[in-house]
C-alpha cells in the first residue's frame, strides 16, 4: 500500500494503514520464526550443544550470508534474530512515514527521535566495545 496516499485519503485508508503495519509485523514475525526454526533443526542435526562452553557464534553481520548459503545453523539463527530486532524498527519507520504524509509533524518528529535513540544505542555499544 502507498503510505502517503493512505494517510491523505481519510479515515478508511488510515484504518488500512494500521492494518498494513499489523500485516508487516505478522509477516516479519513468521519469516523470522521460520528462519529460526530452520536454524534450530540444523542445530539438532549437527549435534551442537548450545550450552557447551565452545558453542558460540559471535555476531558478525558480514558472515551471515555465507553461513546461510552454506546451510550452517548459525546463519539461519542470526538471520532470524536480526529480523526479530528489525521488526519494531520497521514498524516505527512505516508509522513515521505515515505521520509525515498525514502532516502530523509532531508524531513524525517523535518517530525520527525514537529511531535516533536506537541508533544511539548501537553507537554507544560499539564505542564501549571498542
Amino acid at each position, binding site marked *: 500500500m502507498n503510505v502517503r496516499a493512505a494517510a491523505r485519503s481519510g479515515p478508511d485508508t*488510515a484504518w488500512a494503514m494500521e492494518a498494513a503495519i499489523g500485516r508487516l509485523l505478522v509477516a516479519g514475525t513468521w519469516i523470522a520464526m521460520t528462519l529460526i526454526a530452520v536454524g534450530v533443526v540444523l542445530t539438532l542435526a549437527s549435534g551442537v550443544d548450545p550450552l557447551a562452553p565452545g558453542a558460540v557464534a559471535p555476531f558478525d553481520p558480514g558472515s551471515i550470508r555465507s553461513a546461510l548459503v552454506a546451510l550452517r545453523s548459525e546463519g539461519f539463527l542470526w538471520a532470524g534474530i536480526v529480523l526479530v530486532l528489525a521488526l519494531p524498527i520497521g514498524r516505527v519507520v512505516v508509522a513515521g512515514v505515515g505521520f509525515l504524509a*498525514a502532516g*502530523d509533524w509532531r508524531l513524525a518528529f517523535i518517530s525520527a527521535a525514537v529511531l535516533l535513540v536506537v541508533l544511539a544505542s548501537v553507537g554507544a555499544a560499539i564505542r564501549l566495545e571498542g
Partner: protein
Amino acid sequence: MTAVLVLLAGGAAAGVFGSLLGLGGGVLIVPLLSLAIGLPLREAIAISLVAVIVTSSASAAVYLQRHVANLKLGMTLELFSASGALVGGLVAFLIDERVLAALFAVLLVWVALSMARRRDAAPGVTADTQPAGAIPAVAPTEGDHRAGQAPRLVPALAGAPVPATFAAAISGPGYLVRRVPAGMAGSVVAGLNSALLGVGGGIVKVPVMHLVMGVPLRTSTATSNLMMGITAVASAVIYLVRDQINPFVAGPIALGVFAGASLGSRLAHRVDVRVLRWLFVAVLLYTAVEMTLKALGR
C-alpha cells in the same frame, strides 16, 4: 540435542504460562536460563529481550489490525521508554550481576504480589483483554470492521486535522489522555526496568497509562505490548554488540516462546487460571528467594 529440546520446551512453557497468567515472558525466562540452566545473568537477560520482542511484534500486529492499540500514544511514550532502555542497557554492564539478581528478586516479589491481588477472572477472557505476554489468537481481516462491527477506536493516522493540544492529539475516543509528563517519566522507568532485567516492562507501563494517564485498561495493555518491541530493541542491540546473545540458546527460546504464547492465547478461553495463578505466586516467591541467594553469592 537434549539441550536444544530443553530450551525449546522451557521457552514454550514460559510462553504458555506467561500468556495464561498475563506475565511477560521475561519474568519466567530469565530465572529459567540463569537459575535452572546456569547461564550468566546478563546473557539470560539479553536472550529474554529477544523473546520479549517476538511476543511484542506478534501481539502488536493483532492489536493494530483490530485498532485496539493507540499508536500515537505508544509512539510518544516509547521515545521515553527507549531512552530509559538505552541508559539501562549501558548501566547493566557497569553494575555487578549480583545487583541485577537482587533487582530481579524485587521484581519477582512485586509481580507475585500483583498476581495475588489481581481479581479472579473466569475462563473465557477475550483476546482483546489479554494482558502482556499473550499473543491474541486470531487476527481479524480488515473487512471485520466494515462488515457491521463499529470500530472501537479512532485510527492513529486518520485524515482529520491534528487537535490543538498534544494531549488531545494522542487521545482516543471516549478518553482524554492526562498527565502526559508523568506518563513520560513512567515510561523512562519502564525502559530502565526492561533493559536491566530483560522484561517487557508492562508491569510499569500498564498501571501508568491506565491509572495515571486515564487510558482504558484494554488500550493500555495493547499499547504497552506495542511499545515493548522498540523498547527492548534499544537495549537488545547493546547486548548484541557486546556479544551477550548466543544464537544457539536464543533461537530455541524465541521459537518456544512464540509457539507457547500462541498456544496459551488459545487455551485462555478454556482454562480456569485461578488455581494456576496461586501456584505461580508460590513459584515466583520461591524463585525470588533463589535470586536473592544468588545475589548474596550463595
